[in-house]
């Protein structure tokens, strides 16, 4: 095991020493701050149908732990997945493959380094949570155990599970990132679907993978007993309320029983077992060349052919015709996006696209279109990072007016792709005389493109955008009107949101150009 430590350490340092991680830290601090809203805020993070707890140590500790579990389980997967891919891309994997490290040893070190990354972020949320207790202090005494135990017993096992799932996904689904995301999306939905179940038996505790249900049941018991209610639903997450008043109650926290603790140990063991099983299927960086026979023959012919060389004559080259338009860039950007990912995904895209023509417009607009756009995440997320990933940036940055030509082309190409995918919905909105809706689809599509462009330029990585897009899509699927960036769900300040998105788009655009301008001259 001694040799695993340096591997885990190196992997952790490599991942944590990046702008993307710094920004993740900043986002974590902001998010953890928002986990405990001030009493007058128009949103809540944990409530029960008109009831919420007073800000004592147990409530603040558990709310921050619950929110950390929810948010980090959702986003953490995207944050940590790709550790093996990085070793493939950098070809460090080839060196690793020649060392005595076992497949399980390697995967276990990746699991642990994934976990360390999530642990760092959870630790930060934990500290901010304590800080928030004192900031929002309402005179209740501070008990460190009220913060420590929820994090130890709920957040950390959940993070370990997510770390392991990322490894399993990478082993079995390799570079099929969309499939990885989709399967996790569904799995996360399944894990969260039962958290409000009222059944109370040992099996329910054991099968509660994220450990959220135990805390929910404790809160429900408290409210139902104290107020003689029969409420089944606990609402967790950012929920906007307008002028709603809540009855408060004093909740003293969860009494963590042995069954719960054993169930956490079981999930940790299950994670290790899954990673162990995966190690039998791990490629160990030995990729079979899946080349078709004809292609292989063509390649062999090329390598075997003795090509006559007549010499290079500069004077015979055709004259240069200047062309400074951006159309060739748009064409190439579209080509790169279309060729990204496998053909089956295009079949799925076409299926969904056709479906948006025939299903009821409300359903197509509210759910199918956001799903269809999210399916493009891996195409869009690389818009401004692929030059560096593929080390083509030396050419692009040294080209003629790169800022005025390359960047607009990337934005236009991605926007065109999304608009084409949204065309059936746009056409149907027009036919339904919903001009605002149509404009908002265009506005929202541009928001997605510019988020990718700006975050890619800023962090040099596609991860932050992918996490954000995933979280946004997840919230959209929860049916929260204010979060529907395409404007499918009507609410009070619909027009206001449109203007806000438009302003965000303008800011993202200006910021992207400014930062890229600096980058092109400072390699």
């Amino acid at each position, binding site marked *: 095991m001694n040799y695993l430590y340096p591997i885990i350490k190196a992997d952790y340092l490599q991942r944590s020493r990046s702008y993307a991680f710094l920004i993740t830290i900043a986002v974590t601090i902001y998010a953890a701050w928002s986990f405990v809203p001030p009493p007058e805020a128009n949103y809540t993070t944990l409530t029960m149908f008109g009831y919420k707890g007073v800000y004592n140590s147990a409530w603040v500790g558990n709310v921050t732990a619950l929110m950390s579990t929810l948010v980090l389980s959702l986003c953490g997967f995207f944050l940590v997945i790709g550790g093996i891919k990085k070793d493939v891309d950098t070809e460090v994997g080839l060196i690793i493959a020649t060392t005595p490290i076992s497949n399980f040893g390697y995967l276990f070190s990746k699991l642990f380094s994934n976990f360390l990354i999530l642990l760092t972020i959870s630790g930060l949320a934990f500290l901010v949570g304590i800080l928030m207790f004192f900031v929002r202090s309402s005179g209740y005494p501070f008990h460190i155990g009220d913060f420590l135990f929820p994090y130890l017993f709920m957040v950390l096992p959940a993070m370990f599970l997510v770390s392991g799932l990322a490894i399993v996904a990478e082993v079995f689904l390799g570079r099929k990132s969309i499939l990885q995301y989709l399967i996790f999306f569904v799995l996360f939905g399944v894990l969260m679907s039962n958290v409000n179940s009222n059944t109370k038996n040992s099996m329910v505790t054991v099968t509660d993978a994220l450990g959220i249900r135990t805390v929910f049941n404790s809160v429900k018991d408290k409210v139902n007993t104290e107020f003689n209610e029969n409420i089944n639903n606990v609402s967790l997450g950012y929920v906007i309320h307008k002028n709603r008043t809540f009855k408060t109650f004093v909740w003293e926290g969860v009494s963590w029983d042995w069954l719960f603790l054993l169930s956490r140990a079981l999930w940790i063991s299950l994670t290790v077992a899954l990673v162990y099983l995966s190690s039998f299927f791990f490629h160990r960086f030995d990729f079979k060349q899946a080349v078709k026979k004809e292609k292989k023959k063509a*390649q062999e012919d090329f390598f075997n052919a003795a090509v006559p060389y007549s*010499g290079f004559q500069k004077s015979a*080259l055709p004259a240069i015709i*200047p062309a400074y*338009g951006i159309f*060739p*860039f748009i064409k190439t950007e579209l080509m790169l996006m279309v060729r*990204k990912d496998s053909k089956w995904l295009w079949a799925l895209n076409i299926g969904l696209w056709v479906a948006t023509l025939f299903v009821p417009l409300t359903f197509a607009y509210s759910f199918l279109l956001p799903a269809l756009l999210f399916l493009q995440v891996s195409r869009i997320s690389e818009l401004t990072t692929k030059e560096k990933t593929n080390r083509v940036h030396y050419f692009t940055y*040294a080209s003629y007016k790169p800022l005025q030509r390359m960047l607009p082309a990337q934005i236009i190409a991605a926007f065109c792709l999304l608009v084409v995918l949204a065309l059936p919905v746009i056409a149907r909105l027009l036919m339904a005389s919903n001009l605002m809706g149509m404009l908002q689809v265009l506005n929202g599509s541009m928001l997605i493109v510019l988020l990718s462009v700006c975050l890619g330029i800023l962090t040099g990585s596609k991860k932050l955008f992918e996490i954000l897009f995933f979280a946004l899509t997840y919230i959209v699927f929860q049916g929260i009107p204010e979060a529907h960036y395409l404007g499918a769900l009507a609410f009070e300040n619909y027009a206001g949101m449109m203007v806000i998105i438009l302003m965000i788009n303008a800011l993202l655009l200006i910021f992207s150009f400014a930062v890229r301008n600096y980058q092109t001259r400072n390699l």
Partner: protein
Amino acid sequence: MILEIKNLTKKYNKQKTGLSNFSMTMEKGVLGLLGPNGAGKSTLMKIISTISKPTHGTIFLNGEDIVKNPDTIRKILGYLPQDFGVYPNLNAYEFLEYIAAMKGVGGSGLRKRIDMLLDGVNLTAAAKQPIGSYSGGMKQRIGIAQTLLNDPKILIFDEPTVGLDPEERVRFRQLISEMASDAIIILSSHIVSDIESIADEVAIMKTGTLIGKAIPSEIIKRIENKVFETVISNADLPAFKAKHLVIDTSRQGDKTQLRYISGFQEIEAGARNVPAGLEDAYLFLTQN
């Protein structure tokens, strides 16, 4: 055409300096850049290619400041970086068309130009295959082809012969000779023989400064009558190395044949004076 580099300094941070008050003037022809790792060759090439800004100093191309107006040189620049990459999903045609667009080259003749360049770097047969399936040498040749897309007047090659087999290196040299008639070509390499056979002039760099620039024969003159060969016992080797700059060794049983540069007047017993080469001069200048 004249490229003037004036007092160029590039500081990455307080400790790390890439270039230090570097000045040089170039005209048409091939300039070979030699220097050990960290000498500042790539930094210099990046600054001339406008993808990095100097901390101080400037570069003039025909009197125009290209640090302030980078687009002046970009239209006529061909640059091959040391560790460039490609888009693996594109084939050679598509990739070169893309780079041509970056360089502002288009029109009806572009396809023919790409055909001829691909032929020039011996990639015609593989032109329609995804570049992701290419070997390292083939990718390097695509890199060389892209430099010539815009009929460049300034060509910058950072380690261009890495990954090329001997036959391809010969082709590359022919290609450079063809281009050198009306362009400034700057070429860095660790393979001194490549520089010796291609370059009209050689510039030797060390720790961010220029320690010499002249035609190869003049540089070699600096160590004339200082290069010797001798055979000594293996046991005497450490003491010998402490006294002289040993260029090359080859073991012959319990003896070692040495090629060395001596700064002393007296000649070691059994040593014979041999004609000096550029590699000898380079090692002498960079290690002293």
